């Protein structure tokens, strides 16, 4: 057997998907597609970039260069390379956000040999809060705990209202919102992503956890979500 044949023969066996495919299909197509109209709009792309207060960050000592249009969305060319700066921005953001009862903020830091936009730590915290509450909401619905359901819905409604901003169409990935936007916040691309999130929340509010459950599974990673109490 030659090397390529041996490689092909070593392909792991396929593990059949356990999920109900038709249910998944129906859930996905319940939201408008991008190609439905004559001029399709771009759909959700949750940007990796997220934002947190620049004023706080400037005190941390890393060299920055800011290209700013104070009157609107602008390109943010500020970068972090110092993990201490990253962790301070992340810590500051956690003070502005909530987690489900009994959950602690996970440790996060800047990966080695990495630079990132200095708006990212705050958005990371927003993402953690969002995922945690989505997981909590999923469990609350499954457990029939209406009090916990209301808490999760209120937390996520507040999160989307106050900590999510949508970039203008065609924005680059290092876009930043107008000066004065209160941090922390996550930036969504203008491609329908936030509508998809809201759709999932509407389903959950009606007792269907499928959308928030999928988001929870896809995003929870190592998050330790406490059981609904």
């Amino acid at each position, binding site marked *: 057997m030659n090397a390529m044949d041996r490689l092909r023969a070593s392909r792991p066996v396929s593990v059949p*998907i356990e999920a109900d495919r038709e249910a998944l*299909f129906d859930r996905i197509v319940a939201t408008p597609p991008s*190609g439905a109209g004559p001029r399709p709009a771009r*759909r959700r792309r949750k940007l990796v970039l997220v934002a947190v207060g620049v004023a706080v960050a400037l005190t941390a000592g890393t060299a920055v260069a800011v290209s700013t249009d104070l009157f609107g969305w602008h390109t943010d060319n500020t970068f972090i390379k110092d993990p201490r700066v990253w962790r301070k921005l992340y810590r500051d953001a956690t003070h502005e956000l909530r987690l489900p009862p009994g959950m602690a903020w996970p440790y996060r830091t800047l990966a080695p040999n990495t630079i990132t936009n200095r708006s990212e730590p705050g958005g990371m915290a927003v993402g953690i809060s969002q995922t945690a509450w989505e997981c909590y909401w999923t469990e609350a619905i499954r457990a029939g705990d209406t009090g916990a359901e209301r808490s999760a819905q209120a937390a996520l409604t507040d999160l989307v209202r106050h900590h999510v901003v949508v970039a203008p169409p065609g924005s680059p990935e290092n876009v930043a919102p107008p000066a004065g936007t209160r941090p922390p916040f996550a930036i969504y691309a203008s491609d329908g992503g936030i509508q998809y999130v809201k759709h999932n929340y509407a389903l959950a509010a009606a007792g269907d956890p499928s959308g928030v459950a999928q988001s929870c*599974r896809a995003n929870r990673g*190592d998050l330790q979500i406490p059981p609904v109490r």
Partner: protein
Amino acid sequence: MNPDQHPKEGPEARFRRVFAHLQPVADYAARRGSSDPEAIAAETMAIAWRRLDRVPLDDPRPWLFVTARNLLMAERRRNSRRSHADRALAPQEAAPAVESADPAVTRALQALPERDREALLLVAWEDLTPAQAAEALGIAPVAFRVRLLRARRRFARSLAADGLPTTPDVLEVKST
């Protein structure tokens, strides 16, 4: 309008053709070490639906694999941000990027640079043509062929170094 779509075909019918590849996407994610391949596949399909106008319908696999790979990278970034203490508490979650059914192959694959490994696996495991694999990696077909040739050489050398009995193909690859 996507050139592959029938003018009278509705978005759900078009998406049905994309959704038919749910299992291959889950397999792709599993073979790349995802901790939750089904979630990656489901999220990939949700993105495909929202961007249906961009998905090539004749064979959407390259597009789907690109999307799944981006989700996998996000999954790994989340894991990489854990503290050393977290890792010590959960060593079982430090899954390798790729795991084959043959330990010698796994070792040889892990010895390769990631981009060489991905070039090999897109062809050998995901059954993409070189042109499709080039599309999935976002490089020109000519560049992909060069990368694939280099990856095959390195892979064969790694296998040979691990004690694989040499075969004509291995000798041939080693001699090129």
